């Protein structure tokens, strides 16, 4: 059981600890700064925090015995002279890290390996705990990468990185907007996956184009890695072949729209979502914050709301703001309106830790 949470917010990184059966804020780092994401590497206990200073750019920090130290941020290679690449508005794409949107530890046989996904679409790997970063040119230079488009942000970005639990050379990533990509050789080559997903926002003849899919979040089951779950812009999809093909799960109440998904580490048919009214409103239905859970691979869903606000709640839970601990029992969600809730019974009931934090971008057990 994990007794510690790291909460990334618009105005700092908050540490929340379980103490005597209660969860309380025990500390804050980077107060006033925009913390977008953390990773705590279970292999060595090191934590990484991504900051976006706005004026001064994106920075990465790593925990030390006494606090934090700034380490290298992933940096894009020099853009070739005369090379033109335009975004969907015809503006030149700046090859520069705009946001760190995914952090994932490598395999148990790769100490120090960290993966990092960014906007505008670069994937990076460090083999030295973040001291230096190498861009995956094999993916960046792929001709289909240039067709990636902005989703929630103006620029495309890699937000999900799933390192296969039994073979760390197999890595799947998800892009908003650019579907799912997979390498079986540690990044030497990449192939598109995600057949079967459907994009309502595309012309009908392109609705099943894998590269056009706006995956909001991709999750892989730790003990059954062939099982993947996707929360997509217009639906929920499940795969039984490690993302090669997906089946759409329809008619989920209260909504199939949302951002995050988490899958139980030992029960591949058990997954959690946070539904919102689709797409143009993005608020909980009827002002009632809820989490949905399936235990049967998507055949049925329970709406879990005990302990969550059920009147005038307009909390949105972003894709990194639903956390599941390593045992699969404890969950936490953080919202755009600064609410934080923890469940110790797989979502059956929730306890509010606080509702006065700054906007929450990411929640992670640490």
């Amino acid at each position: 059981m994990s007794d510690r949470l790291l909460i990334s917010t618009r105005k700092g990184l908050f540490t929340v600890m379980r103490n005597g059966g209660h969860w309380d804020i025990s500390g804050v780092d980077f107060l006033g700064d925009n913390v977008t994401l953390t990773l705590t590497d279970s292999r060595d206990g090191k934590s990484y925090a991504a900051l976006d200073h706005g004026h001064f750019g994106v920075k990465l920090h790593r925990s030390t015995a006494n606090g934090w130290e700034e380490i290298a941020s992933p940096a894009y290679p020099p853009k070739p002279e005369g090379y033109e690449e335009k975004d969907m508005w015809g503006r030149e794409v700046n090859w520069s890290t705009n946001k760190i949107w995914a952090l994932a530890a490598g395999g148990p046989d790769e100490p120090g390996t960290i993966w990092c996904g960014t906007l505008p679409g670069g994937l990076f790997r460090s083999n030295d705990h973040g001291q230096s970063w190498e861009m995956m040119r094999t993916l960046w230079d792929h001709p289909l990468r240039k067709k990636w488009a902005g989703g929630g942000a103006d620029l495309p970005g890699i937000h999900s990185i799933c390192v296969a639990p039994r073979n760390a050379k197999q890595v799947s990533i998800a892009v908003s907007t650019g579907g799912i990509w997979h390498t079986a050789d540690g990044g030497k080559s990449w192939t598109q996956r995600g057949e079967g997903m459907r994009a309502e926002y595309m012309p009908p003849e392109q609705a099943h184009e894998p590269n056009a899919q706006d995956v909001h979040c991709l999750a892989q089951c730790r003990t059954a890695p062939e099982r993947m779950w996707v929360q997509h812009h217009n639906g929920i999809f499940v795969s039984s072949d490690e993302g090669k093909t997906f089946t759409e799960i329809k008619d989920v109440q209260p909504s199939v729209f949302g951002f995050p998904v988490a899958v139980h580490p030992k029960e591949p048919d058990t997954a959690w979502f946070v539904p919102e009214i689709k797409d143009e409103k993005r608020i909980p239905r009827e002002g009632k914050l809820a989490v949905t859970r399936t235990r049967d691979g998507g055949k049925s869903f329970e709406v879990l709301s005990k302990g969550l606000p059920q009147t005038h709640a307009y909390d949105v839970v972003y894709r990194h703001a639903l956390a599941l601990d390593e045992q699969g029992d404890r969950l936490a969600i953080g919202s755009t309106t600064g609410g934080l809730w923890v469940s110790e019974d797989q979502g059956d009931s929730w306890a509010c830790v606080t509702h006065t934090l700054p906007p929450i971008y990411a929640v992670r057990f640490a």
Partner: protein
Amino acid sequence: MAKVIFTPNVQRHVGCPAAEAAGATVREVLEKVFADNPQARGYVLDDQAALRRHMTIFVDGQMIRDRTRLADRVKDSSTIHVFQALSGG
């Protein structure tokens, strides 16, 4: 040598004391300053070595025009202010 003064707001992230360096352009002067303070470079310049979007530079009170190449001319007596732009929140 030109004098370079950094916004006080960057100082809590990375120390950027006022510095002096020779050079005919903003680029030449700043690269010399950053050679002695490499961590500061990424706070001012992006991955392509252009001025970050929400930063601004004044040479003797005039905002520079070339934010990509930083080719604006600098005199030996110039003062270069590296500031935050008001854009960017």
